[in-house]
């Protein structure tokens, strides 16, 4: 069990206490039924060895003629019963879990008993040896004192001994001298006369089994001798007063002197002094008829109780179920609930949003359930309904208990995880556990910033070598970590009313953004390397996927810097520098490696268009005309415009810039909601834009017709494939039209920006392409779908000039 749950072995003991105890002393508490079988074991064989020479022990307690019959069991039962008195007696299992917890705080009560038991033969003679010299109290004060007496009971099988209560002892009222004298005699194993009522352990067991197995009737346990009865009687309050207090020892003496009086109120606390007058003579402890009757009644009551409880044997009560739940939950608690349960977090967030939308209420509340400062569950359901039907108070209780479990587990782990087990292990051994598995995707958050990020490349000088792939990957992982941390931080936004917290939170966020900004290496000099470190970061698809997430967090000024750098170094991008080659008519001409390479580049381009371009569009959408003009100027000056424009990312960038400029120039009607759009563009900016545009167009115009992928394909083709190029399979053809549309879009953006005379030039440059396309669209051999796409493409451009494809006569 301990292996399965990962808990200390004292769990076992507590379970034994409840049910299937194998140690005799604990088993007595199980009220019989469930343990009939387990008690049949041969544990008795060693009783001799275990309990040894018990003559001493017997005498040890016999100095008090009636050694407070209830005392020995008191020490055991009281430990649980007194603590959990409020619990119904009829709930025997209630002990189990609670003991489980209590044993952590106060493990002294039930747990050590089995351990110390074997020492009994050694320990037993000791009090005897000391007895003559020591005062009486010293015996009673010893906490061990009850144990030998307890041990004496089972030993009666070996060496029939006066049991705790049964036999009448010679001197009923003893003076202190007598007692001392008796103690001095203790070395001599004086055999006391015994009563036939003394019952061996086997007999008890037989009775218990008899009560358990056949149709249980109270009569099945035939009047166990009264000697056994008081022992099972929980008399909770007596124990605390017993050890070490002089009063207790005196009381015990009195109890022993007046057994009837002491034992009379067996069910109720007997802390009070026996009411009888001290001097009252008591006859020999012959059980009077009424006492026997009383015992009988008591026994009947007890067996009836056992009977009534037995129907719950082997069933789990609510508390047992809770116990299991707690253990299971404790294993879910982790130190880093957000990252280690990331998907559960996302899922539950979505679910709660849905539920909140459905219920039309506000969705908030913690997304994790804290069980301890360092531990939490990463799951939570809809607020208020977390963990199914359990209410919030139950949840709180559960949390605190799980916290205890987890803490003790952690403490346990600390002691057991020695270094010896790690010898020969490779690398760093992570000390994960069931309770706190090491989150795989999370880097230890406390890792210090090891170096300035831009020292990733430690070469000095104006130019350096580009980052290696490994460096890029390391930097990207760090970026991802930083972004994840920041996103987590943003989710934990304090309520707006908490001003101080909000300020701290803002500062934290700003700090994280600063870290990210440094790691992005945007501020490196523009020509520091080719590709620029930032471009190196954004080249892998992993980096591209990070791009939109980064943009959300960067302040506008930094985002703008980022955009400028990106545009300035656009040609260094993998997708621009090494675009997918133009399609060939017959892919069977390609080698396998070629095909794989093409596919990879296509995939990268697609990823770039999906991940980065929307962000770029958004950033460009924030720029004013002057900025757009500046950016276009950078394009025109720093890059081979035609070459960049021949790639899809290039087309997308230029289209975005041109359309943004146009939308600013054609000042939209004043929008009261968007005040910054109201202002008309500055005439100086417009002038600057026009100049930049003119330059840009003059660079691009000669090559404009070559930008179309279909033209490029035809140009790249040779031999027979030149004729085949236009006749792709329809599926590929439609894809081709889609890509053509992007270039037509660029042409349209050029057209709407162009002044009159430039428009003529544009049409002239594209004249052949337009005619070609319109004719192909009107060709009956062309699939209607594709023809429609072709016409749409051409019209996109022509409409910008106020023309339409239908005006062209074939």
């Amino acid at each position, binding site marked *: 069990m301990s292996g399965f749950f990962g808990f200390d072995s004292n769990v076992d003991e507590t379970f034994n206490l409840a049910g299937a105890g194998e140690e005799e002393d604990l088993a007595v508490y199980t009220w019989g039924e469930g343990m009939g079988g387990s008690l049949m074991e041969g544990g008795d064989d060693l009783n001799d060895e275990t309990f040894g020479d018990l003559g001493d022990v017997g005498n040890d307690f016999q100095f008090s003629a009636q050694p407070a019959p209830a005392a020995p069991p008191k020490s055991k039962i009281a430990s649980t019963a007194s603590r959990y008195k409020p619990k119904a007696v009829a709930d025997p299992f209630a002990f189990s879990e609670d003991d489980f917890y209590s044993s952590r705080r106060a493990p002294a009560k039930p747990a050590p008993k089995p351990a110390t038991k074997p020492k009994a033969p050694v320990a037993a003679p000791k009090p005897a040896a000391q007895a003559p010299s020591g005062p009486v109290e010293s015996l009673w004060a010893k906490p061990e004192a009850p144990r030998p007496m307890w041990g004496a009971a089972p030993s009666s099988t070996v060496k029939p001994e006066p049991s705790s209560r049964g036999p009448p002892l010679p001197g009923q009222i003893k003076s202190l001298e007598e007692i001392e004298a008796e103690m001095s005699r203790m070395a001599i194993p004086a055999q006391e006369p015994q009563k036939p009522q003394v019952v061996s352990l086997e007999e008890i067991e037989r009775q218990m089994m008899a009560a358990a197995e056949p149709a249980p009737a109270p009569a099945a346990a035939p009047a166990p001798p009264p000697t056994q009865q008081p022992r099972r009687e929980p008399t909770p309050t007596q124990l605390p007063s017993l050890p070490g207090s002089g009063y207790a020892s005196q009381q015990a003496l009195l109890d022993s002197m007046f057994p009837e009086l002491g034992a009379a109120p067996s069910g109720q606390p007997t802390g009070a002094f026996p009411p009888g007058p001290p001097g009252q003579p008591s006859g020999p402890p012959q059980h009077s008829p009424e006492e026997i009757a009383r015992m009988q009644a008591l026994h009947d009551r007890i067996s009836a109780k056992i009977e009534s409880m037995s129907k719950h044997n082997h069933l789990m009560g609510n508390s047992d179920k809770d116990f299991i739940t707690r253990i299971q939950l404790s294993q879910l608690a982790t130190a880093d609930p957000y990252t280690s349960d990331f998907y559960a977090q996302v899922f539950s967030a979505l679910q709660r949003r849905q539920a909140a939308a459905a219920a039309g209420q506000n969705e908030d509340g913690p997304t994790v359930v804290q069980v301890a400062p360092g531990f939490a569950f990463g799951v939570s359901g809809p607020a208020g309904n977390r963990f199914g039907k359990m209410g919030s108070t139950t949840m709180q209780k559960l949390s605190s208990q799980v916290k205890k479990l987890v803490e003790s587990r952690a403490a346990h782990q600390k002691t057991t995880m020695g270094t010896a087990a790690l010898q020969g292990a490779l690398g*760093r051994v*992570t000390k994960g556990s069931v309770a706190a598995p090491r989150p*795989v995707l999370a880097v230890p958050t406390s890792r210090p910033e090891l170096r300035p990020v831009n020292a990733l490349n430690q070469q000095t000088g104006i130019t350096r070598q580009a980052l290696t792939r*490994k460096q890029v990957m390391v930097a990207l*992982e760090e970026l991802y970590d930083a972004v994840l941390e920041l996103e987590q931080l943003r989710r934990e936004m304090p309520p707006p009313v908490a001003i101080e917290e909000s300020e701290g939170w803002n500062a934290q966020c700003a700090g994280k953004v600063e870290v990210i900004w440094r790691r992005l290496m945007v501020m490196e000099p523009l020509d520091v390397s080719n590709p620029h470190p930032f471009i190196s970061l954004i080249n*892998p698809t992993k980096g591209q996927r990070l791009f939109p997430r980064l943009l959300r967090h960067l302040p506008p000024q930094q985002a703008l810097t980022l955009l400028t750098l990106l545009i300035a170094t656009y040609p260094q991008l993998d997708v621009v520098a090494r675009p997918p080659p133009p399609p060939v008519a017959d892919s069977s001409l390609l080698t396998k490696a070629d095909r794989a390479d093409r596919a*990879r580049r296509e995939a990268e381009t697609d990823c770039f268009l999906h991940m980065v371009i929307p962000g770029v569009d958004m950033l460009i959408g924030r720029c004013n005309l002057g900025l757009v003009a500046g950016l276009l100027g950078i394009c025109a000056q720093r890059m081979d415009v035609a070459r960049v424009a021949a790639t899809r990312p290039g087309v997308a960038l230029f289209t975005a810039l041109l359309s943004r400029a146009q939308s600013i120039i054609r000042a939209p009607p004043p929008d009261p909601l968007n005040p910054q759009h109201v202002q008309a563009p500055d005439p100086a900016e417009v002038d600057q834009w026009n100049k930049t545009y003119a330059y840009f167009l003059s660079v691009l115009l000669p090559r404009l017709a070559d930008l179309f992928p279909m033209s490029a394909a035809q140009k790249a083709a040779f031999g027979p494939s030149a004729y085949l190029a236009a006749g792709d399979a329809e599926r590929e053809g439609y894809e081709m039209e889609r890509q053509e549309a992007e270039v037509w879009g660029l042409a349209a953006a050029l057209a709407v920006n162009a002044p009159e005379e430039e428009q003529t030039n544009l049409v002239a440059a594209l004249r052949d392409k337009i005619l070609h396309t319109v004719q192909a669209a009107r060709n009956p051999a062309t699939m209607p779908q594709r023809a429609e796409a072709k016409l749409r493409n051409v019209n996109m451009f022509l409409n910008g000039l106020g023309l339409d494809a239908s005006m062209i006569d074939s």
Partner: protein
Amino acid sequence: MDEAANAGISEPLDLVKLALGERVFVKLRGDRTLTGVLHAYDAHMNLVVSQVEESIHSVDVTDDGQPLPPRVDRRNVDMLFVRGDGVILISPAQQ
């Protein structure tokens, strides 16, 4: 330069982490190899890989014991969970 990049690496799996989201080549027991995009891994080298091409290398033997030329069976899987006990090596796929 490399030391700087190595500073963040303290255990072998930190290197595998660098390949997250990238195409990796995985050699498996039973004469299998696969390439795919690595999505997740754990300490047992359990992997989640997508766009997988798995190759099974086998050598058939004729009845008289003569080995035939090695044969490679390939199959493609969209998403694959690879149990860690079969993994021999993971490397970035050569580009």
